[in-house]
């Protein structure tokens, strides 16, 4: 990353193209050398495929109830000769099908929340760092206000008020993340704004938005990807916690977190499959995101020490 900025000294804007494919090859080699990230990437690939094609693979309608066949064990007999591969839940819905559909929503929530939070955070951070002054003050104080309070309580407050729903959940979880991005971007922008290639762009008469988004932004993407991958992991966990409190998605929308939360009443009755499968899906996905995040951090900059 740091050498990209020194590139910028001579080329004004960092060059893509051949440079990029070389980087990609280097990334591939580093990944294979580290071994675990390859596995993590494979897992995530499977999750993404399931998220996209899940509805086509799913043997049963994930919301179709059958209370006569509720709490069937894995491989148990389903409706009309079908099989509950991973058992059925408290309303006789197919756990396997819900898991497949759940991949889509869980991933969607995770990624969209990061997109929302990231976008707000990046713009706020860029503006804050580039302009400084009172704009900076206002934005950073807003961030302080938010960080001065446990996020989960703010999330609870807004979800109680807004009511549960996928969009609300994404917004709340996303807004919960923006400060992290804003702070990092601001810091980077502050240091970049005095750099010569930025000065040069300014001297050439580039518009402010072009300087911010074309010249500065590409140079701070790398650390953001690291945080983003850790963040997806923590957002998936946060979704599970909110589901536990009854504030997640509506019950007709399957997510891994809500499935796990629903399983809690059944654990004492030993209906293990209700917890194990969504639990495993969450653990593996979150684990993969964390591993990728670790590797990305080491790969992009061994000295980059950002929390979360």
């Amino acid at each position: 990353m740091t050498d990209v900025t020194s590139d910028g000294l001579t080329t004004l804007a960092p060059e893509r193209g051949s440079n990029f494919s070389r980087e990609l090859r280097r990334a591939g080699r580093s990944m294979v050398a580290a071994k675990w990230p390859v596995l993590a990437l494979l897992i995530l690939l499977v999750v993404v495929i399931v998220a996209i094609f899940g509805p086509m693979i799913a043997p049963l309608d994930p919301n179709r109830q059958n209370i006569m066949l509720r709490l069937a064990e894995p491989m148990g007999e389903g409706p009309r000769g079908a099989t509950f591969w991973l058992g059925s839940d408290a309303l006789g819905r197919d756990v396997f099908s819900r898991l497949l559909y759940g991949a889509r929503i869980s991933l969607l929530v995770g990624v969209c929340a990061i997109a929302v939070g990231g976008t707000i955070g990046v713009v706020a951070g860029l503006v804050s760092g580039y302009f400084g002054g009172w704009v900076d003050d206002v934005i950073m104080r807003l961030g302080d206000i938010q960080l001065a309070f446990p996020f989960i309580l703010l999330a609870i407050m807004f979800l109680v008020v807004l009511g549960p729903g996928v969009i609300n959940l994404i917004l709340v979880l996303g807004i919960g993340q923006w400060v992290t991005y804003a702070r990092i971007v601001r810091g980077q922008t502050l240091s970049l704004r005095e750099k010569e290639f930025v000065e040069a762009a300014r001297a050439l008469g580039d518009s402010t938005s072009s300087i911010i988004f074309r010249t500065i932004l590409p140079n701070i993407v790398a650390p953001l990807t690291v945080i983003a991958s850790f963040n997806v992991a923590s957002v998936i966990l946060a979704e599970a916690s909110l589901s536990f409190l009854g504030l997640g998605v509506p019950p007709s929308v399957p997510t891994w977190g809500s499935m796990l939360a629903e399983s809690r009443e059944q654990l004492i009755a030993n209906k293990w499959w209700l917890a194990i499968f969504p639990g495993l899906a969450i653990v593996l996905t979150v684990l993969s995101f964390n591993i990728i995040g670790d590797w990305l951090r080491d790969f992009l900059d061994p000295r980059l020490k950002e929390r979360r």
Partner: protein
Amino acid sequence: MTRLRHLAVAGASGLLLATTAAIAQPADDTIVVGLSADITTFEPANISSRDNANIARHIFGTLYTISGDGEVSPDLAENLEISEDGLNYVYTLREGLTCHDGEALTAEDAAYSFNRAKDPANAFTGNTPGFVFSSIGFQSAEALDDRRVQITLGAKNPIAFGLLAEVYIHCKDSYEAMSLDQAASSPIGSGPYKLASWAKGSEVVLEKVGEPAKMDRIVWRIIPEASTRSAELIAGNVDIITNVAPDQIDAVNASGNAKVQAVQGTRRMYVGFNLSEEFAAMPGGDAIQDPAVRRALQYAVDVPTICKQLLNFECVRATGIVNPQNANQSLTPYPYDPDMAEKLLDEAGWPRAADGTRFSIRFQAGRGRYLNDQNVVLAIAQYLEDVGLKVEVDLMEWASVYVPLIRERNVGPLFFLGSGGALWSPLYDMTDLARVESGTNYTHWNDERWFSRWADIAAATTPEETRKIVDEMLQVFYDDGPWLHLYFQPDFYGVSERVDFVARPDEKVYLFNTGLK
């Protein structure tokens, strides 16, 4: 590495120590109850929730008391005379009563207990001023002499006696000396137990100070999470738990330490059809205006299966608004017959469209209030979808989102609700629909064949005559009523093998006579 080994050894021995230490199992003179909801106050005139009232009843005496099967017995009072016009109730207190601080409890104190609850300056909103007084049109209470207190009502009311038996009695001097804050946290009662300690959100400890009381101490623990509650019961740390989750009943019964007692409660669960003009303009709201559609939907839902599968309880489907003992005995519950439902819907002019849908409708419900409510609502929605409706389930946070909608009679077109009932009179259950404008007529039902009959009931002179009118009204309600009949909510109590508690059908947990086996 040796350090690590030391650590491991130390850790293991710590765990061993822990296993040998006895985990708080109740002592022989103590009974421990696990409640699902938090309790908020001991101000007698502000108590309203069931759990709160259950604890408070041990601290405060009442004039009379009604047992689980409806039997009346004296408590603080030993005699009652009701005036000819039914407006004056004169209670005679027992001799030698005292409050927990030693003050003698006289008729003046009893009258004060009523009047204090009514005083607008106190802005009390509990069961006594909010429900009892408004139901009976309470006027005033006054002491006739040392032991006789007279309660004056606004209008004759056949159920006033039972309601007056819910008012907590306490002494005057002690409560006049306390601020409202103090009264809320340190009650000075008149019952067999006094409040020993209250750790908010955690536990309430009562200590025996009088009779009837078998145990020296009662500990009420607040354990909101159902699994945790069941685990505590199975582990033997708690003697009685309320609201056992239906799917955990088998685990409790199989533990050998405790058994679940299931009682059919009196709370009437139903799906309401909101028939107001406003809702008639909504999708599906127009369809349910037609009694034939409502009747068709009765056939679409398999209530006994819902009970058995989701509530772990064998139930007979309700036939109306009144508890089974008082119901019109000639009515049989609607059977589950989806084909019939489809046929009737076709006939009513709502055939399936090309996509298989007859009409869409919103189904609103609160969450976390009734037994397994979320799953029951989803299951009902599925049954309705099976006969061609497109149901949009809208589950809401109970207390501050759903309740306001209910109170404003602004919920629907379909909504899920339970309404507390009673066994002593069909009229108690039916008064929910006393007038078209009644606050409890959540469906805006306005069938003259029901509402015009209240005048007939008032005019009726014999019980038989009343019964006949009641049966006719219930027939109308069954045929063309605004409810999709469901069931009477069962209550599940987990009871340790250690104690001889017997659950009652009215959600009351009174432990005066509960002891060790």
